């Protein structure tokens, strides 16, 4: 099984060629504004290490879409249709959103009559004329991406589907996101996810399009996949439709990569990037998940995310010199290689400190040779104490645990960190994200409404587990490697007693041979 894993980060694009867990080649290159040329450069660097036809898959993890939301960049205006009047007007769409984000996506919000009760009866008929009016209004305003959310759509999605058809009749080219495709009960969280997804439609077309352009440029026939937040893959067509599913795939990849490279399955992982360090916990080889809802870019959603503490220390962090030395949280980000002193720039960064202290061979050490020794010591101490404070927040037990350092900024750390049983920087730590992407699994999900009583619960759940496992194998997972990743049970209120919506996700290792034979099957199972 040979794969290329790629991480397209805000600062660097990394590529690794991995065969059966062994890194055969790796390359790190700055992320370019157009993304594609950096990606081409990274691919060109690792491709010569094998025959092209031996590569089973290119798996890309990217934070570009998350960053677009967080930085309010490359977002498009979204037309929002909420179906549910007369209910829910006290909390209209976009309630509680940060003002700058609302400005970035506009306030094209329409609420119409319709939606369902918890038992699947309509609250009222869908107001089709109002949906058509909304679509015409969006078209006039030049809004091309539409999010539709209907009350209780996870139980009854007919009004969302019908509204989508009506919008399409007015705006055939519109990008449509339906909330029922993205979430479970909890109208605001599900609607938020749909709106964010819709706001990213153009960015997704661009960014994922650039992945396809890079592949075409190199005349590669290998299929391209993207990693999702749960560590499984989806094909690029699905990623274009659901860019929001790539959220948090970066931290998942870096933690899975850290596990692959270090062999530590229960540890704290510190991923030191260009701008921030993300600190999370590995439990039995998987990232510990945050409980409850997660804010992304200030928006409340119900996505599963690794439980991370992010601190403003990275390789590109600015070292402020003045009365008191400070490190971060401002960063030169992807411009490190032009603006940092050691690369001939005029900005003093955390990387310059590491170079001046002789801990890394990158850059030109002579350019930072004249720096004040005391300043270097102080900045260095701040970097270490900042990371240690972050580790302390992530730990759930007082006992020392192994700490694995990964990311391009791992060289900032020179001594064992406090609270660590051991501090490990594995080989290829600087490309752990890409290694984690290459190690991404394939999954399948079953989503069924079932009747559960106390005497049949075990049997019903076992049955659903079996169906999910079979579907994962069907999708291309290696039989025997498949296990249940998560189970969600949503009781359906007021339906027959014991009625629940059960969602079971099974994941396993990609099986090369099957996978090459059945590329079409991957798509169906790759969702979440």
């Amino acid at each position: 099984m040979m794969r290329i894993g790629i991480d397209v980060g805000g600062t660097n694009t990394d590529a690794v060629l991995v065969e059966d867990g062994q890194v055969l080649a790796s390359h790190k290159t700055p992320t370019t504004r157009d993304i594609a040329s950096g990606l081409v450069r990274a691919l060109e660097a690792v491709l010569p290490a094998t025959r092209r036809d031996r590569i089973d898959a290119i798996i890309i993890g990217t934070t570009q879409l998350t960053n677009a939301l967080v930085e309010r960049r490359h977002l498009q205006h979204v037309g929002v249709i909420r179906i549910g009047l007369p209910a829910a007007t006290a909390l209209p769409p976009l309630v509680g959103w940060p003002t700058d984000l609302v400005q970035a996506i506009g306030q094209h919000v329409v609420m119409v009559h319709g939606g369902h009760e918890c038992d699947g009866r309509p609250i009222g008929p869908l107001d089709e004329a109002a949906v058509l009016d909304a679509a015409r209004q969006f078209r006039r305003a030049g809004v091309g991406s539409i999010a539709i959310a209907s009350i209780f759509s996870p139980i009854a999605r007919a009004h969302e589907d019908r509204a989508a058809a009506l919008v399409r009749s007015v705006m055939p080219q519109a990008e449509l996101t339906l909330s029922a495709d993205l979430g479970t009960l909890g109208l605001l969280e599900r609607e938020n996810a749909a709106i964010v997804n819709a706001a990213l439609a153009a960015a997704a077309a661009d960014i994922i399009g650039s992945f396809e352009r890079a592949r075409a440029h190199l005349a590669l026939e290998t299929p391209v996949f993207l990693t999702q937040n749960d560590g499984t893959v989806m094909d690029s067509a699905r990623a274009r439709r659901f860019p929001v599913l790539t959220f948090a795939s970066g931290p998942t990849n870096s933690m899975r990569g850290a596990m692959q490279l270090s062999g530590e399955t229960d540890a704290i992982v510190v991923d030191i990037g260009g701008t921030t360090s993300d600190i999370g916990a590995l439990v039995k080889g998987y990232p510990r998940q945050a409980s409850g809802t997660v804010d992304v870019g200030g928006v409340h959603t119900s996505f599963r995310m690794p439980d991370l503490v992010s601190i403003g220390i990275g390789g590109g962090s600015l070292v402020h010199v003045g009365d008191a030395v400070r490190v971060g949280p401002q960063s030169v980000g992807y411009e490190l290689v032009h603006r940092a002193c050691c690369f001939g720039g005029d900005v003093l960064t955390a990387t310059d400190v590491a170079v001046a202290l002789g801990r890394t061979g990158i850059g030109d050490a002579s350019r930072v040779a004249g720096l004040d020794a005391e300043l270097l010591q102080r900045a260095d101490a701040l970097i270490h104490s900042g990371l240690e404070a972050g580790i302390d927040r992530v730990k759930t037990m007082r006992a020392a645990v192994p700490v694995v350092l990964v990311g391009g900024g791992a060289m900032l750390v020179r001594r064992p960190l406090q609270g660590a049983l051991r501090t490990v920087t594995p080989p290829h730590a600087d490309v752990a994200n890409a290694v984690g992407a290459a190690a991404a699994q394939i999954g399948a999900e079953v989503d069924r409404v079932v009747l559960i009583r106390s005497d049949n619960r075990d049997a019903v759940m076992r049955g659903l587990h079996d169906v999910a496992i079979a579907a994962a194998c069907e999708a291309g997972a290696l039989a025997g490697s498949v296990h249940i990743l998560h189970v969600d049970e949503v009781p359906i209120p007021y339906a027959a007693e014991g009625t629940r919506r059960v969602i079971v996700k099974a994941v396993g290792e990609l099986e090369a041979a099957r996978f090459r034979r059945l590329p079409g099957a991957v798509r169906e199972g790759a969702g979440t």
Partner: protein
Amino acid sequence: MKLCIQDAVDLAYGAGLLGTGGGGSPWIGQLALQQLLATGASVDVIDAMSLSDSATVATVAMIGAPTVMTEKLMRGDEMRLALELLEQVLDRPVDALMPVEIGGLNSTIALVAAGTLGLPVVDADGMGRAFPEVQMVTFGIAGVSAAPMVLVNEHGDHVLVQSVDNQRMERLARSVCDAMGGVAHAASYVMTGAEVKAHAIHGTLRMAIGLGRCAREARAQGGDVLQAIRDYLAGTGIYGGSTLLFEGRIADLDREVQAGFNIGTARLENNTGQVMEVLFRNENLLARVGGQVRAIVPDLICILDSESGAPITTDGLRYGQRVTVLGIGAPAALLTQKALAVVGPAGFGLQASYQPLAVDAIPPQPSDTRS
């Protein structure tokens, strides 16, 4: 005391914790309250003791399945209609509102209704926590009638319920709520100022806001949120001490919605293989380890995220979460023989009898005990 926007955030935390897993998502109420305050509306919280004895106070609440409340959100003017109708039945104006319960969604609902209508809110409630049924309030236990009760839904459908028996009020209200689509806005338990002074649990609104503030400040300072919460509660004089019941991962969840309640069991496992079972019916009712009861209603059983200290509702429980279970001794008003018959194990059809929570003998130290 006039509420500010930060109070809405802090109250949502405190109300979430005191909701003991139920009472609906305070986040929804927080958003509604923030919306209201942002429009310049003012919400005034007054002391129970400042009421005139003859004042007319009504309690307000949303009733129904918490899952439905997060999906079929409020329209916003339901409570205005409920109070108009209630005033018609009473033939006198309502002078102030009071939350029926401090825990969960309903404390914020009372504040939103009060801000919308320009009425003050009494700093008190009938539970000091959250309970699922109409009769489970201190004033009901003391003999105050829940009737007349007006229920309103998002369509403006409304029903007046009258009964001399609060248990029957519960059954009637529940079936109305069911017919209204699973959730209704209710105005009921009309009391005089004198009755509020005598029978409500005082100071719980400010206390819940303070609880949220203390958790927020502990988090900002990188302190121990759980310890900060326990110290704060010990200082309120409302509760009977606290104890750390369990720390572990959610190993299994069995839950369903029955007649509008989220009912089920969460199984928690710790690193030594010990298992705690938490039974819930909207709220957490019973926590036991190997058949041994560790905490039982009306004492408070709160499940918190071990990392952030954020309270987790029974809807929000997920397989694999790392959680901490905190036990808090119930307010004294819930522990009389008369009260236990209504809000104790028997009131929930539990076989076990009430046993007081074994709270930590030594009062927790105010300092951060982690090294």
